[in-house]
């Protein structure tokens, strides 16, 4: 599908969310068993929070997500807290990100998280967050579940992150 057609569809989907629901119904059902669960044991005001977004956010200096592959791109990008916001960009043709280009926080609420830390509601903001592209299908689903998501997760664990907030595009 051409990038123009994707962007056009993205605008239509943004305008009419019920179409997204219908597209989701048509998609091949995944076999998903059980629900992983880790109880919250630490108070939020002592917890370090990291963000994981599937909105296609990355740094302009990083490799953009692959828009040519119709099954999407299962790789991730490291997003650092202390990077000036204008160095971030979004590569994702499957939703209309013109508003998010104006204010990254509507898909990647990094500034809001920083404010909650200053307010004392959370203990800290992780130094590193992660950006994925949320349009993954076909064989890439397996790559995501078995390789790239666990790889990123190991980094979150190693960094001592206590809580992860996930946001879509």
């Amino acid at each position, binding site marked *: 599908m051409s990038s123009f057609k994707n962007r056009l569809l*993205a605008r239509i*989907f*943004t*305008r009419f*969310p019920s179409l*997204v*629901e219908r597209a*989701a*119904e048509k998609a091949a*059902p*995944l076999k*998903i068993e*059980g*629900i*992983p*669960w*880790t109880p*919250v044991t630490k108070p*939020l005001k002592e917890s370090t*929070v990291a963000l*994981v977004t*599937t*909105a296609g956010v990355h740094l302009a200096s990083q490799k953009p997500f692959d828009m040519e592959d119709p099954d999407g791109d299962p790789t991730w990008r490291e997003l650092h807290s202390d990077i000036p916001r204008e160095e971030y960009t979004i590569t994702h043709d499957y*939703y*209309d*990100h013109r*508003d*998010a280009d*104006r*204010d990254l*926080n*509507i*898909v990647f*609420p990094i500034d*809001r*998280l920083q404010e*909650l830390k200053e307010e004392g*509601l*959370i203990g800290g903001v992780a130094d590193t967050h992660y950006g*994925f592209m*949320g349009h*993954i299908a076909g064989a890439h*689903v397996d790559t*995501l*579940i078995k390789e790239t*998501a*666990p790889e990123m*997760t*190991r980094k*979150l*664990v190693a960094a001592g*992150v*206590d*809580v*992860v*907030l*996930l*946001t*879509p*595009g």
Partner: protein
Amino acid sequence: MGLIQREIERAGIPTISVSIVRKLTEEVKAPRAVFLRWPMGHPLGEPGRVDQQTVVVKRALEALEKIKEPGTIVDLPYRWRRYDDIRKDVVIT
């Protein structure tokens, strides 16, 4: 998003996601989520609306602490561009 969330939760870190497509979140069996009937590309609201963005992040973190049943999706009562709504109190049980 839900598939990634499940991997993080499985590794021992509690997670919460902001969903704008309820059906997808139900199908992938995300551990915990808050849901808003807001347009694609706007899970935290509109550009420059710090109040909207803050309220969604706060509610999500509250839901993280309160949800005890795996797979719970909390429907937030905020309608798109109804600015009075964001002052609504939400009791997450």
